[in-house]
């Protein structure tokens, strides 16, 4: 019975202290100043986030439209190279992450295993001077600063004012005071964070971008992860406050700590990693790729030679349009070309594997460098928060790599489908002419090309024929039977998986929190209050 009253008393004491702290914080000039700046910046960065998101959506839609058109237009199997497009996530408005730093389109073809996107990222080059200043960054900078500004003088400030000794005159346990201060500060920070999120959401919704159900869960988790970060910064401030005796010194150390954790460590870590884990020259890689593609051409030429003289083809020397010539060959010519292209398809696959392995090595080295940069910056809570926020909002590098892996799998499915249906050895691999179609051109027409009359006649014939083929293509008469073509399957990383991926960083943030708080409590027990 007695312990219950005691507990209730304790709670009410802590609550009273927290309430007093909160009121004091809300009235302080630094709080108002930083809150106002934060809100303005959040609105600005949301606006630019919405703008950037729209550009990405535009790019996505164009990619999808192009993919559909290509599927419809392809009339031979070798021409069919499906485009897959990385879906956008509106959460990039809150947290830009890596979302806009990579293109959106990958192509699944016989001759290429997708490792990087086909298109380059869209954006304005002159703004690349600055790293993305999204809502997360604004909060990490400004509210991280606020967290320290609210906590640095929690103890040392009261001591200087002489109110600390006063606080303990009425049987108040020391831990109760510190807990109350922690709760009060965190309440103020939560309130600020809520207001920032509200400001961002208002701009977001007014601009007409929708939020779906899953996105709300992700936003909620994002919010919680930022709270953990702010709590870490607050605890660090609290620890500093307990370790020092004059608020001027606490503030100085607090500010330097903020500077080092938020700005200095992330920058210096990435920078140092770029030389500590060196990348091979991208130029050399480019040259290597060039060499491989030249080798492919050379091998193809060899195949051509080994197939012997090309049978005379009827109708090829009349080209109606740049790059398009009439495909009506003699049956022997069809077989000759088919042999060549089937063999080339095989060569292309080997080429694809070679290119893939080369670029994989390069990409792995990129990843190793990024991993090192993260390791170097792991002292900073900012690095952990960044990683958590990126994964939770689905804007991380992992999400892009996940998409590329899906594209890679899809390409393999297509290859399997091609092989299962023996497509590379069927005439439909190279031509959409109906089987057994005969050339309307007279035999040996190449000899007659010097006769202007004959030339004119044949041109007319070619034009009519070409118009007919075009009409047939247009009407879908020559369309490929793609009804059972494998479908591209990519779903964004589920929230659960994202959480488990960043569990180490969440634990790191929690440990920073706990360590600082426990140290602060322990140290405060022996703190000289006078």
């Amino acid at each position: 019975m007695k312990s219950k009253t005691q507990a209730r008393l304790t709670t009410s004491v802590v609550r009273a202290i927290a309430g007093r702290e909160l009121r004091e914080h809300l009235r302080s000039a630094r709080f108002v100043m930083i809150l106002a700046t934060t809100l303005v910046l959040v609105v600005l960065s949301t606006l630019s986030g919405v703008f950037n998101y729209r550009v990405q959506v535009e790019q996505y839609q164009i990619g999808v439209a192009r993919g559909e058109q290509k599927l419809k237009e392809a009339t031979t199997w070798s021409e069919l190279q499906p485009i897959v497009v990385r879906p956008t996530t509106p959460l990039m408005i809150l947290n830009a992450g890596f979302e806009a730093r990579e293109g959106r389109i990958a192509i699944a073809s016989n001759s290429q295993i997708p490792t990087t996107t086909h298109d380059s990222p869209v954006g304005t080059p002159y703004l690349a001077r600055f790293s993305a200043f999204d809502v997360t960054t604004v909060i990490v900078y400004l509210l991280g600063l606020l967290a320290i500004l609210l906590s640095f003088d929690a103890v040392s400030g009261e001591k200087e004012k002489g109110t600390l000794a006063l606080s303990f005159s009425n049987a108040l346990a020391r831990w109760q005071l510190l807990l109350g201060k922690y709760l009060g500060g965190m309440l103020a920070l939560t309130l600020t964070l809520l207001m920032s999120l509200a400001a961002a959401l208002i701009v977001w919704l007014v601009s007409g971008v929708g939020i779906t159900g899953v996105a709300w869960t992700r936003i909620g988790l994002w919010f919680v992860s930022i709270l953990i970060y702010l709590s870490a910064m607050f605890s660090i401030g609290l620890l500093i406050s307990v370790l020092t005796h004059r608020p001027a010194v606490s503030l100085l150390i607090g500010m330097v700590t903020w500077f080092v954790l938020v700005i200095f460590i992330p920058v210096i870590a990435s920078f140092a990693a770029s030389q500590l884990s060196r990348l091979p020259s991208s130029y050399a890689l480019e040259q290597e790729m060039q060499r491989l593609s030249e080798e492919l051409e050379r091998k193809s030429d060899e195949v051509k030679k080994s197939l012997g003289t090309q049978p005379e083809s009827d109708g090829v020397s009349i080209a109606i349009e740049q790059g398009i010539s009439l495909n009506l060959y003699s049956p022997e010519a069809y077989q000759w070309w088919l042999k060549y292209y089937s063999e080339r398809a095989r060569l292309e696959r080997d080429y694809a594997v070679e290119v893939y392995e080369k670029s994989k090595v390069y990409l792995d080295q990129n990843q190793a460098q990024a991993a090192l940069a993260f390791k170097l910056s792991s002292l900073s809570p900012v690095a952990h928060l960044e990683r958590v926020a990126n994964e939770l909002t689905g804007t991380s590098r992992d999400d892009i790599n996940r998409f590329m892996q899906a594209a890679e799998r899809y390409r393999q499915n297509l290859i399997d489908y091609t092989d299962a249906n023996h497509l590379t050895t069927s005439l439909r691999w190279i031509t959409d002419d109906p089987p057994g179609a005969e050339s309307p051109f007279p035999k040996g027409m190449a000899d007659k090309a010097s006769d202007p009359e004959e030339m004119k006649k044949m041109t007319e014939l070619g034009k009519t024929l070409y118009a007919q083929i075009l009409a047939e293509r247009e009407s879908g008469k020559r369309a490929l039977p793609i009804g059972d073509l494998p479908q591209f399957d990519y779903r964004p990383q589920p929230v659960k998986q994202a959480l488990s991926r960043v569990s180490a960083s969440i634990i790191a943030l929690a440990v920073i929190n706990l360590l600082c708080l426990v140290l602060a409590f322990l140290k405060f027990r022996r703190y000289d209050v006078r």
Partner: protein
Amino acid sequence: MLAIYWREVRDIVKSLRFLIALALFLPGMCVNGFVMGGAYQDLWRMHVDAESQNEGRIRQEATHLEQLAIDFNEIFGPSGRGHVLILSAPPPRMLPLTTGTEPGGFLAVQWNFPNLVEPADLGTGNLELPARPALDWEFMVRILLSFIAIILSYDLIVGERERGTLALTLAYPISRRRVLLAKFLAVLTLLSWLLVAGELLSTLIYLARGGGSFGAMDYARMGLFSVGAILYVAIFVAVSLLVSSRARSSVSSLTVLLIFWMMATVVIPQGGTAAVEGSVRTISDVQVEQRLMHQIEDQIDEMVGEMDSFVRADREEARKDAFASEQKYAQRINQMIATAKATIDEQEVSHRRQARVLQNVMRLAPSGLFQLGTERLLGVGEAREQHFSQTIERWSDAYASFVKEQDIRDPDSPHVFYVQNYMSQKPVDLNAIPRFNFDELSLTESLKNAALDWLLLMVELVVALVLSLAAFARAPVSETV
């Protein structure tokens, strides 16, 4: 005045915060020298490789004149053996000072005759890494040294007031103005030492790691940069003294100054970027791509409509009809290139417009002025990029006129430019082909570019100093109760 000056210098050197400053600035500069030295080597190797590759390509493929003016398959689709040269600039000599806007500091384009320039995907940096600014001298001064300036000087006056020594200091037989100037100069001296020490360390490590050697002109630029850096941090010292004169406590002085620092170095430039990005529209890459596709499609349709038969492979045959259709074809091709170029230029113009707005927004904060001024003084960033593309254009013109001149000299040539089989087949003097060569901007040009930014920065310093003198003149001597 000297007595106060030396006292302040001594006090600061002995203080904890000076130790913090040393512990942040000097290792940072060492890391800069270490990384930049290696980066210079990498970039230099890339540049040399590209150059020797180009030389080899010219020697191997320029068997006759026609090969210099290329087949246009490159425009309509990959032909596998395109005449693409990689034009690159050597790494900037001032690499440790600032990398400018290029993430890898490497300027390179793929160049295809006649004058079709595409960015080469080289040195774009590691896309797995989050985007972060490079730790160059410019960053170290703009972000770190300005921060140090504040923590060294925030309590120079209010601290004395708190300790009660201000009255004593003012008892020296000199005017208040001189007291303030003594303090101002003391902090500035220490900051200069710090800067010079950091620069020395960075330069030594940079050179030891194989960074590019510096000439007299480069050292001159370095000196000018250092003067500019001191000018910039002096603003922060002056503002610190201003706030310190009026502040009630050193805590509130530091709080206000930190918020000022954050506004000046992070909030205004970054928030300005966000605002400009969200409000000043540009033509997106996607739009350009679509426009280009439509234009090329239209042009091809028209071209096909005009021609009764395609360009013939038989040279003798073609000569008979005085190349009417080939001439038309060449005309069309040129027109196509011109339209494509106009579309791309239009986007470039919209980007530049946005960049100009952004620069003016950045100029609102001293850090933006310093950043722009440094880039222009050192001849990197946007100025260098523009200079690079101008050099390419000039060289392209020289190359084109070389080809034309050589072609005209050949009486057997049909003179239909850019079309295969309709140009001179004569061998070319390989050494006479103009080679691409990039010269950095001269110091005088750089100075001219940077003058406005540095002037504005100086004005800001004078204003800050005058305000702090005025504030100190009326500053209370003891704490008011």
